[in-house]
């Protein structure tokens, strides 16, 4: 049987400093994250601020933005919800904790937006009037520079990687008809600008290979990074770099949910006779993204031709059969499998008849309707910078400025559960142990990582607690130990480490 699809979403945010020309993005990211840490902890019990003296918020008292020297000590922190919040490649990145279900992954991704919003407000208070650090939850600057929103899924090591690539690629190339975040124009060097007024995906312009290890250059559709952050003899972590950062909860839920189902089917050999291999996946990826009619056919290796929707439909129908024969328990204990499947079918139906029905549901449709509505009303050309500005501002996450949040797109999460997820870890993965260690005994944690916690109790040598199984260290496993431990020494004793 497929292993539990433990999953998570990493988001690199775009960052600018309004009111400052050519601000250093690494410095801005560090200030943003440090502002969050200060906001949470004040200056008590957390030595982080003292470790990065150059990043002191007082730097902003100067007229100009702090110079780049302060970046020598990059900020990297772990939150009590089990997430990692750090500076990566000149962007602030929030990596959600390991989640047991697609819905939980979306909750923790949305909690990440809350973390960034709080960071922005906290940073703003220490900045001179007229300056503001602002982040955008998108994937490109419209000038050819891209940054990612990656998904991670737990896989069985026994699954041969070549088989995974073969069956996941056609699904990856075509899922953007549902889950793309939309983009005005194109950044592909091979395509004349005017030829693509609007496309389904933020990222399709930036992929050049079918399979590979790269993530920043010559990006591949299937990334081969083999860093399981878990017992490598049993598990693999599929690191998906293809996707867009979603604003819409439904888009995000579909992205993670449908992918988790397809991976489960591949693991269980349930796709073995469903060969939808494309002749040229990389150019098909762009073809699909550029085709708003959703009618263009892609060429398969078998010689057949199918549209992206037909490929999605074939995989969806196979998933229905899989549900009947194997169940969808790998998507967590809360029935996500069934609701993802229902949603998937309905969205494909709606895309088939009239995609605009989904303008209050899916990102690309919502954005397209807004941009084209504004264009029609004002009689603008597609290359007008107002339309590009609307595209960017769709991804602004500040409530006063975000166009996405003004559109009233449908939600599936409750406000309270997202708020709780800002500080509380998921209950059913090892993230629970990580988060609770930080919440209860943060002063004694020398280092935290995905697969271990290192304690510094003062007198003894450092003590490392390995967490090689993402499904251990849950609330059921260790909740009682935390309740019974008054200090970290007691916790470590009862863990027997």
């Amino acid at each position, binding site marked *: 049987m497929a292993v539990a699809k433990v999953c998570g979403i990493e988001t*690199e945010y*775009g*960052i600018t400093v309004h009111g400052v*020309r050519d601000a250093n*993005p690494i410095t801005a990211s560090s200030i943003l994250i440090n502002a969050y840490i200060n906001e949470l902890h004040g200056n008590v019990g957390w030595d982080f601020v003292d470790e990065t003296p150059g990043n002191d918020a007082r730097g902003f008292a100067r007229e100009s933005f702090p110079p780049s020297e302060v970046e020598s000590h990059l900020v990297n922190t772990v939150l009590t919800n089990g997430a990692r919040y750090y500076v*990566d*490649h*000149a*962007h602030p990145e929030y990596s959600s904790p390991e989640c047991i279900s697609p*819905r939980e992954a979306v909750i923790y991704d949305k909690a990440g937006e809350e973390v960034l919003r709080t960071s922005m407000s906290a940073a703003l208070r220490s900045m001179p009037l007229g300056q503001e650090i602002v982040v*955008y939850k998108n994937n490109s*600057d*419209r*000038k050819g*520079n*891209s*940054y*990612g929103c990656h998904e991670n899924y737990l896989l069985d090591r026994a699954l041969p990687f070549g088989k995974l690539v073969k069956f996941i690629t056609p699904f990856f190339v075509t899922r953007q008809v549902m889950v793309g975040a939309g983009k005005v124009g194109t950044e592909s060097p091979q395509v004349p600008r005017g030829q693509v007024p609007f496309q389904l995906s933020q990222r399709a312009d930036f992929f050049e290979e079918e399979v590979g290890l790269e*993530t*920043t250059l010559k990006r591949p559709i299937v990334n081969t990074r083999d860093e399981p952050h878990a017992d490598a003899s049993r598990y693999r972590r599929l690191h998906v*770099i293809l996707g867009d950062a979603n604003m819409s909860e*439904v888009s995000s*839920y579909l992205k993670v949910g449908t992918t988790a189902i397809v991976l489960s089917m591949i693991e269980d050999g349930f796709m073995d006779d469903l060969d939808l291999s494309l002749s040229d996946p990389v150019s098909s990826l762009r073809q699909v993204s550029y085709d708003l009619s959703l009618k263009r056919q892609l060429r398969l290796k078998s010689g057949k031709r199918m549209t992206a929707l037909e490929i999605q439909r074939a995989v969806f129908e196979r998933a229905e059969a899989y549900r009947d024969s194997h169940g969808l328990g790998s998507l967590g*204990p*809360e029935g*996500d499998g*069934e*609701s993802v499947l*229902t*949603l998937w079918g*309905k*969205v494909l139906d*709606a895309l088939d008849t*009239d995609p605009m*029905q*989904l*303008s*209050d*549901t899916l990102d690309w449709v919502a954005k397209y*309707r*807004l941009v084209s*509505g*504004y264009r029609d*009303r004002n009689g603008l050309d597609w290359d007008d*910078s*107002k339309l*590009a*500005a*609307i595209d*960017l*501002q769709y991804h602004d996450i500040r409530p*006063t*400025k975000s*166009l996405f949040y*003004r*559109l009233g797109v*449908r*939600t*599936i999460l*409750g406000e309270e559960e997202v708020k709780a997820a800002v500080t509380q870890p998921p209950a059913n993965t090892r993230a629970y142990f990580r988060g609770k260690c930080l919440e209860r005994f943060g002063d004694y944690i020398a280092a935290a990582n995905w697969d271990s916690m290192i304690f510094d109790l003062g007198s003894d040598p450092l003590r490392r607690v390995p967490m090689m199984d993402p499904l251990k260290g849950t609330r059921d496993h260790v909740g009682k130990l935390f309740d019974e431990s008054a200090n970290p020494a007691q916790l470590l004793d009862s863990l027997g480490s």
Partner: protein
Amino acid sequence: MAERELKKKTTSQRTEDEVVDATAPSSSEKSEKLKAELDDLLDEIDEVLEDNAEEFVRNYVQKGGQ
């Protein structure tokens, strides 16, 4: 424990209802409502948009990431 399980059920039930609701078939009533909402936003969007669109778009430059 029992309470937690009960809560879980309610949560997932709600998800499914809303998921179905989120893709309810298009009716003329729904299209009218969507159109009215969009019109409202289009009416006010110029007040929300960054002051100088051209400059905003030009100055939005990122270093590449992953």
